[in-house]
């Protein structure tokens, strides 16, 4: 059971006001699931939205508890047909269900920002309001959506993600080996360190950097994705998407493809095996999962863009990445590297641009409600150092669904203004 944090320290932190153009956060925690199972956020999250091993298995399993979902449901779905209708198929519609209540949750940021170079200080509150949708439509059909209703003074910026997932296809023969996702989603190449799972406000550089304006690893894309856990220690992802990121309609018929393989040693299985199977879900100390996870991915894409003279041009590009995650006791060590090649990123003389980005991050759970993070990351373009960034972060959970964050953003590679920003953030979800 989490204890309430005395407000004094938190108020002091929150009043340290700083200015920065806040980057939009993407949400993965969803109180609709907390309502469905009458359980705390901490069942699936180390600190919202960062998932623990059980939460990751829950997501992979199509937002169903791996060890018998029906056992734990407290909010009865509305049946669209009794189970026995399956015996009447194909002369009847296969039975399904919808959530008992409309599966909506809210995710709200209040932020105070200080921009070092300009000395600007700003209350950015509220910074963002997101509406989250997520639940299942009967067994092995799940959905998830994220709609930004307000962001930095702009109402209704729009839909970020929405997809339906058909999980565990041909389950009796294939188990959890094949699931299909359709819609708009964050490509699964970064499953080792999903942007929606991160604890920091700043995005890891491997997910965030651009060589071309049309591609960034973390951008949600529209398409289809096959994924699965054929063995409890192995996962794969195969995707086919429009490309061109989230905000641009596909201007050509070229599609991007990607693939990922992940291997986990130790800890809970990727399919949730080895997890809790008791009467009730476990909500405490779920951040311990002594394990090592390695992932490898490749992304091949084609972007059609226009240059400053409004001339359309093509850029064929690829990214190859490796990520590693080590969880030992209260500590997480994460690392990732991505190598990229863009054949024609700007329709200028700058062709065949090579890029390398990598990061190393250490998270430590000092107490279940105090988490410290430090991340070091670098970007090189054509072999030359382009950017070095350091992100220290302190996260405090006042409640399982109320999180305070203090975070700095430093760029030691700059000759001046190495200190860029300081942010104090309050996030609450309901």
């Amino acid at each position, binding site marked *: 059971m989490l204890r309430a944090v005395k407000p004094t320290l938190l108020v002091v932190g929150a009043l340290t006001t700083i200015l920065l153009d806040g980057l939009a956060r993407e949400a993965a925690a969803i109180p609709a699931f907390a309502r469905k199972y009458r359980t705390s956020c901490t069942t699936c999250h180390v600190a919202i939205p960062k998932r623990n091993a059980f939460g990751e298995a829950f997501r992979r399993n199509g937002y169903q508890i791996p060890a018998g979902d*029906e056992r734990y449901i407290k909010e009865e779905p509305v049946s*669209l*047909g*009794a189970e*026995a*209708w399956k015996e009447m198929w194909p*002369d009847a519609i296969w039975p399904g269900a919808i959530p008992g209540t409309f599966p909506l949750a809210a995710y709200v940021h209040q932020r105070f920002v200080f921009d070092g170079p300009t000395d600007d200080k700003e209350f950015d509150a509220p910074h963002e309001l997101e509406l989250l949708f997520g639940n299942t439509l009967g067994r092995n059909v799940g959905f998830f959506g994220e709609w930004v209703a307000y962001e930095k003074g702009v109402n209704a910026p729009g839909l970020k993600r929405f997809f339906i997932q058909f999980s565990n296809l041909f389950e009796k023969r294939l188990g959890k080996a094949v699931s299909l996702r359709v819609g708009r989603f964050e490509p699964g190449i970064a499953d080792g360190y999903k942007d929606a799972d991160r604890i920091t406000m700043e995005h890891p550089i491997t997910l965030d950097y651009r060589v071309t304006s049309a591609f960034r690893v973390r951008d949600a894309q529209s398409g289809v994705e096959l994924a699965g856990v054929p063995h409890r220690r192995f996962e794969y992802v195969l995707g086919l998407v429009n490309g061109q990121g989230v905000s641009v309609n596909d201007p050509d018929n070229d599609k991007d493809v990607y693939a990922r393989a992940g291997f986990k040693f130790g800890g809970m299985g990727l399919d949730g095996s080895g997890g809790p199977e008791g009467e009730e879900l476990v909500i405490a100390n779920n951040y311990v999962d002594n394990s090592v996870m390695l992932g490898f991915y490749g992304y091949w894409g084609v972007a059609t863009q226009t240059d400053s003279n409004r001339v359309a041009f093509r850029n064929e590009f690829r990214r190859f990445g490796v990520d590693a995650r080590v969880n030992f006791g209260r500590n997480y060590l994460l690392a990732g590297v991505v190598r990229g090649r863009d054949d024609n990123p700007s329709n200028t003389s700058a062709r065949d641009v090579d890029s390398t980005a990598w990061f190393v991050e250490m998270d430590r759970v000092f107490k279940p409600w105090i988490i410290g993070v430090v991340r070091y990351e670098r970007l090189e373009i054509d072999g030359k150092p382009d950017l070095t960034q350091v992100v220290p972060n302190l996260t405090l959970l006042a409640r399982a669904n109320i999180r305070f964050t203090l975070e700095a953003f430093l760029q030691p590679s700059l000759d001046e203004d190495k200190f860029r920003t300081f942010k104090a953030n309050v996030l609450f979800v309901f």
Partner: protein
Amino acid sequence: MTRILAAGALAALLAATGPEAGTIQGRISHPLLARWPATVFVEKIPGRDFAPPAEHPVVDQKDLVFIPHVLAVIKGTTVDFRNSDSVKHNIFSSRKSPTVFNLGAYSSGVVRSVTFDKPGAVSLLCNVHAEMSAYVVVVETPYFAQTDREGRFTIGGVPPGSYRLAFWHETVASDPQPVVVEGGKVATVAWPQPKRK
């Protein structure tokens, strides 16, 4: 809420030969049994037939729900299907059931009956209300019981002998287990964890 008719327990008591009867206890360990109980029963005993009860057990329809959700009966039992609702219902069994029937639509207060002559689980559906569901589990001996939320069961009044003990559940299954009953004693059966059907 699920109820199961006590016809089996009563029949077992009548069939038992007084103080020589034994008891079978055990547990089926699976999380889904907390949601839907299982019906545990002694499989057919070669050379022995048991007469069905003269009184008809009832499956009622009230507030768009079958009551009970699971009814266990001995082979040959006639079950009355009563409509206590204010709307019409149309009970029928799935075509994969051992007894296939369709009672047609009928109104409040009407009772229609079906005799279950073949062993196995009969899935009941309503053509008007797709979410309604129930089962009639037809067994061949009067020795049966329903599990509690922990998966535990007790079957009393079982004559001494060697039997096969089986169970039916709507989502999980496992192979029957052998059991030897001695007079005046309790035989314990523990199933390996069943798998989802």
